[in-house]
């Protein structure tokens, strides 16, 4: 997995992967990283689920150089990871270099969620390529994980942490990300074509369909806004028209929009737009609003944007709503 070449200093953004097995190895590796980071100077940010923060906090005592943030507060969408780190680094920029631990929750995620989370790990390298010096260590518990899943995650990190130091990873693929295959829509699905004259109809159809399938009113408005933003991109950049498909899958509503355009910037909508920049907020809205956003775009193949919105666990279709829609 590594060529075991020690990295003597942080060259800009140092993004490393830490495969560990069990809590003891987790603790020794993360505490060593924190010590390493503290010696290098600057602030330490630990973004982890509550139980991990509790364990680390107990071992660190009152180290006021370590800031803990809750990854659960980010919500389900892996697309929120990059802007969250933008914010956390921004808040500590005056402290000099920032060293982070980024522990995402991988359990209780389906294949699509896990695939997108891996992609976000890979995109971190692009998002912070020109950022001031900082390092980010991503622990992953290999216990019970398939080797292929660990290997896929290794390909997203230029460095690997071995528990005491880091080295370059020969597994990292810098140029092209190998996406998971996106399965065809589950049956049955609804479909409509659209152009600029149909944007209002696209919103109406999405709203009626989402309400009829049990999504709450506020979330329905957010889904409708997200669909409208992607459809607008089809009009403006995707050849002026597109196709909308809607279906229910795994207790979630899925809206897929296809058009002939190509999204050339993989970070489009993934990073917070500068305040001075007017425009360029459509995909940013989409990532903020949905529980999962999958984008596949390539020359000759066009663009597919798949938006997921999870249904509430007590979701039922209220009778009065159905009556309203009839």
């Amino acid at each position: 997995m590594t060529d075991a070449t020690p990295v003597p200093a942080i060259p800009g953004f140092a993004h490393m992967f830490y495969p560990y097995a069990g809590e003891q190895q987790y603790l020794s590796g993360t505490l060593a990283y924190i010590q390493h980071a503290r010696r290098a100077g600057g602030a330490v940010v630990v973004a982890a689920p509550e139980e991990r923060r509790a364990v680390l906090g107990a071992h660190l005592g009152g180290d006021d150089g370590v800031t803990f943030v809750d990854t659960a507060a980010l919500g389900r969408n892996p697309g929120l990871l990059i802007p969250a780190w933008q914010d956390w680094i921004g808040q500590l920029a005056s402290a000099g270099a920032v060293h982070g631990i980024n522990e995402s929750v991988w359990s209780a995620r389906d294949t699509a969620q896990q695939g997108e989370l891996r992609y976000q790990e890979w995109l971190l390298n692009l998002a912070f390529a020109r950022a001031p010096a900082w390092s980010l260590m991503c622990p992953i518990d290999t216990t019970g994980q398939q080797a292929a899943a660990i290997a896929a995650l290794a390909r997203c990190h230029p460095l690997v942490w071995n528990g005491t130091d880091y080295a370059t990873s020969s597994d990292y693929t810098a140029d092209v990300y190998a996406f998971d295959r996106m399965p065809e829509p589950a049956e049955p699905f609804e479909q409509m074509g659209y152009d600029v004259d149909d944007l209002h109809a696209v919103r109406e159809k999405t709203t009626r369909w989402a309400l009829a399938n049990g999504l709450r009113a506020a979330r329905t408005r957010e889904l409708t806004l997200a669909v409208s933003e992607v459809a607008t991109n089809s009009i403006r950049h995707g050849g002026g028209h597109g196709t909308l498909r809607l279906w229910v899958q795994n207790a979630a509503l899925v809206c897929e929009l296809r058009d002939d355009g190509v999204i050339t910037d993989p970070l489009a909508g993934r990073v917070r737009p500068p305040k001075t920049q007017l425009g360029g907020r459509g995909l940013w809205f989409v990532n903020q609003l949905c529980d999962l956003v999958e984008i596949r775009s390539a020359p000759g193949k066009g663009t597919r944007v798949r938006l997921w919105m999870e249904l509430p666990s007590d979701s039922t279709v209220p009778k009065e709503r159905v009556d309203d829609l009839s």
Partner: protein
Amino acid sequence: MQTTHKSWLLDPGEHVCWQVRSPQEYAAGERQLIEHTAHSADRLLIVGVPAQKTNGSGRVSVLYPAHEAYPDGQSGAVLQAIHGRVDAARREGHVLRVLAAMEHVAPPHVPLDELVGHEMELAELAAQSGTSVVCAYRQQMWEPNLLGDLAAVHSRVVGTQPRTAGFRLNRADAGGWTLDGSVGFESLRAFTAALRGALARTPRVQLRCEMLDLIDASALRALVETVGQSPGGSVVLDGVNETVLRAWRMSGYDATGAAVEVCA
């Protein structure tokens, strides 16, 4: 939507956009409006050339701009004349309904902003005087996209339904304006024109948004840009739902110093 007798049951203060397909439809609608007016205590002012003889009962009067108020091409003069007739009727204790053939109020080649400005003045007249105003647009005279945009600044459309703009900007009873529906990319031209029209009437525009479903990223940008181009102008979106508020905060425009306030 077909025009029916029911279409002409006008509420006080209504500002209606009538998109007319044919001279026959116009004549039928005018006749129905005259009949409805005859069954009320109101009176009717027809701006333009009536399609039929008015019966001289005094309930129907005619303002023929080419002869009376529109000799020098100043469309604003027609609006002044309408204001004068409505005020005179009020002084006499009557409510004067207005049916305006819009080609007599402004020439069909007039820019959208100017036309929207006229419409907002008529909306204000309707709201403040309690009269109802029907703006008749003969489809063969006006560009289809223009008719779609104009529907957004009326409280109701009768006749052919144009490509919908998705939103409506209307005069509120208590002053200010109401913004309803959804404002998306397809509505930008109409939305920008309506904002400019409102800002031209008062620099601090209050929009009541209880019936606003959503406003997309392109419309928020248009809002910020339009207000920025209006020296001393500001816009308040009041009573917005959580989605609109969230979109505004996500946009980051609140931190740019734009003279726009968005509140629940």
